């Protein structure tokens, strides 16, 4: 018996009500992709030709990505299994081996299946369009699938990455330790600090460094270092705003439950959350305007864009707070 697969299957059965919705969503996505490919077949063909011509390169890249991701997944899944509720269940060695293989390589197998479906769909479109290159999608699919399969084998050669154990979020929160000998100062002000701290807690160094990689990759060749710094700062500012917005929603939802038994007016709680968040958003808008100025955008346009960001940010945060805290019997 393979306990983890059996448990996963039971969970899937418990969620069977969503199966139809999922199938409809997947069919819709696939249909949209095929329709797009059919509509843009003339412009897509050169890309297909390029991919077929550089099939070996694509296969090597797919193999490297697959090897790294599967090695990481293996490490995570093994650490997860060691702590799971099924860890003490007796499993035969052979069953445990193939179960682990299936779980660890699941995304790679899924990718091969998806590539197969897409390959067949693209080939059908090309046949319908009476194009001679209908074999190209199969060739590309074979290269990529071969690369992924080679990556699965290669993942065993990759050194096992250490399983990441995330420390408490407060580790990354800038906080001045004050030793106040006196009593507490009753106030709701601390609520305003909560989303900002949550933003710092989520923006852990490892996550930020990973988010930077695609931004650096997207930079065109020949970009100067100072231009790159400005672009990174711009992405950082926008990322911080997005995180803050999510943090306000997260913290206000949690506060709704925590503060329910307290005699505090909703307006006071909304104000306590909103004012510090808006201050940060306005500061981010100002930074955005300054960065645009560095990019030689006119004063007027920079100020307009900065103000627009600040206004939209404050309005959306305010609306989210009113939506979450403003209805129901309790704050």
């Amino acid at each position, binding site marked *: 018996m393979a306990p983890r697969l059996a448990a996963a299957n039971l969970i899937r059965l418990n969620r069977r009500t969503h199966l139809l919705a999922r199938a409809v969503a997947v069919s819709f996505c696939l249909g949209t992709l095929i329709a797009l490919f059919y509509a843009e077949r003339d412009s897509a063909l050169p890309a297909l030709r390029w991919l077929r011509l550089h099939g070996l390169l694509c296969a090597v890249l797919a193999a490297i990505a697959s090897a790294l991701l599967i090695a990481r997944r293996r490490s995570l899944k093994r650490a997860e299994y060691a702590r799971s509720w099924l860890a003490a269940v007796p499993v035969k060695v052979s069953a445990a081996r193939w179960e682990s293989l299936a779980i660890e390589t699941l995304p790679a197998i899924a990718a091969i299946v998806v590539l197969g479906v897409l390959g067949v769909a693209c080939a059908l479109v090309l046949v319908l369009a009476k194009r001679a290159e209908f074999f190209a999608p199969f060739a590309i699919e074979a290269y990529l699938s071969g690369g992924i399969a080679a990556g699965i084998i290669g993942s065993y050669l990759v050194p096992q990455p250490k399983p990441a154990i995330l420390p*408490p*979020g*407060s580790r990354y*929160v800038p*906080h001045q*330790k*004050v*030793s*106040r000998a006196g*009593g*507490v*100062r*009753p*106030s*709701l*002000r*601390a*609520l305003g*600090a*909560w989303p900002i*701290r*949550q933003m710092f*807690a989520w923006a852990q160094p490892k996550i930020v460094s990973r988010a930077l990689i695609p931004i650096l990759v997207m930079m065109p060749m020949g970009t100067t270092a100072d231009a790159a710094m400005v672009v990174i700062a711009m992405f950082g500012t926008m990322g911080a705003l997005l995180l803050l917005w999510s943090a306000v929603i997260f*913290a206000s939802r*949690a*506060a709704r*439950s*925590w*503060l*329910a*038994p*307290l*005699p*505090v*007016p909703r307006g*006071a709680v909304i104000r306590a959350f909103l004012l510090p968040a808006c201050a940060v958003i306005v500061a981010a808008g100002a930074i955005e305007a300054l960065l645009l100025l560095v990019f030689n955008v006119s004063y007027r346009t920079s100020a307009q864009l900065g103000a627009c960001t600040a206004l939209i940010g404050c309005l959306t945060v305010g609306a989210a707070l009113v939506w979450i805290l403003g209805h*129901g*019997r*309790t704050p």
Partner: protein
Amino acid sequence: MTSPILEIRELRAGYGVRTVLENISMTLAAGDWFVLLGPNGCGKSTLLDCVVSRLIPSGGEICIAGHSLSTAPYEAKLQLGYGCAPDVLPGLLTSRQCLEVHAGAKGMAAIGDDLFALADELKFTAYLESFVDTLSLGTRQKLAVLLALVGDPQLIVLDEAFNGLDPASALVLKRHLRARIERRRGALLLATHSLDIVEHYADRAAVLIDGRLKHAWSKDELQRLRARGDDFEAALAEAIGEP
């Protein structure tokens, strides 16, 4: 005649179409330590959630210190202190900030020294500047109880408040709660599985089975059990019809 600290009349509550509590009526007078017992999933926490306004009942009425929770929630909640589950506490605030928020919400100018004295007795003072997400389960439990006592409320509601506490801290807390409700003429509603609290501290107790109050013990009945030196476990088994 003074109004009871807590009055629940024909309470009905549930989640969606599932009814968990049916026709619950009970009253807590000044000085009552009331223990709510019952098997897992019988509705103890649901009842407490209704009393502290975390769940809106589908029927019935709850009054705290004479104020209806549905028509005068502000006045009712001013007299209420609730020890929430440790996982509900905000991880990224410090313990001191949690106390500040609770005191600010109750419109207090300052927190009384007795609360800090209790924090000292519970060996909690050292954690006042620590973030909640760095605290152990027991320390969070102490914070949750301290938050319930902010504002010296007339009605204290605690859900499994002694879980995770070391025996010494649990003893300090039980004695403090006993003294507090007698001094304040308040009331304590505690949901627990610990029968020793019923045997040594409670004034009244009731057992909830399948969302209904199956049996209740008055102050006199509990005192008689204590005087006879009887085991409360046997009395509970008899009340719920277990062999």
